[in-house]
């Protein structure tokens, strides 16, 4: 049974029915892999930029 402290006062969720979240089973792993892959490419670009800066410096 709910505590009496919860009765007769406004809620914090806006008073509308809460929308059900779509199932995401299996998606999280895909996203994690994708984010990692994108992170790797960013790292590669950073390395390329550093290489070009080094080349210019030693030219």
């Amino acid at each position: 049974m709910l505590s009496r402290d919860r009765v007769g006062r406004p809620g914090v969720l806006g008073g509308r029915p809460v929308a059900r979240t779509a199932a995401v089973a299996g998606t999280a792993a895909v996203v994690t892999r994708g984010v990692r892959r994108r992170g790797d490419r960013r790292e590669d670009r950073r390395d390329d930029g550093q290489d070009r800066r080094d080349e210019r410096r030693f030219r």
Partner: protein
Amino acid sequence: MNDEDVDELGPVDYVVVEFPADRANFSGEMAKELSALVDRGVVRVLDLLILKKDLDGSVEGFESHEFGDDELGELRTAETELAMLLAEEDVESIGAALEPGSVAAVLVWENVWAAPFGSAVRRSGGQLVASGRIPIQALAAALEADVSTTEEGV
């Protein structure tokens, strides 16, 4: 929770985790992970309720202390932090999302980790103008599009 607490409060989120009535299990791994987050000061549990939705669609709410240690396990250790934020009206709102014949845990927590950053923003004269959560489906779609573009060599 007083005005000073609210001023120092991090963002507050909630989740509703639903189980078929015959497979409800609030102890074990789930409780352990949550307790670890509490212990590390990442989150502070503000409310915890158990809801049951009967096959006829009626919804009943239960306080965490109505359940035994076996059922709620380590979640009970967070009970002292409960601020009892949710009202009966919220139970009705959440109940609308539940499948008939299911049991759900409703957890409200403060993202404690974000509070110092929020204070720093305010002290620096900044203010929050927008925040939100990006649906994981949208992330998947963006990454999928990224892969397609890469494969096409665009």
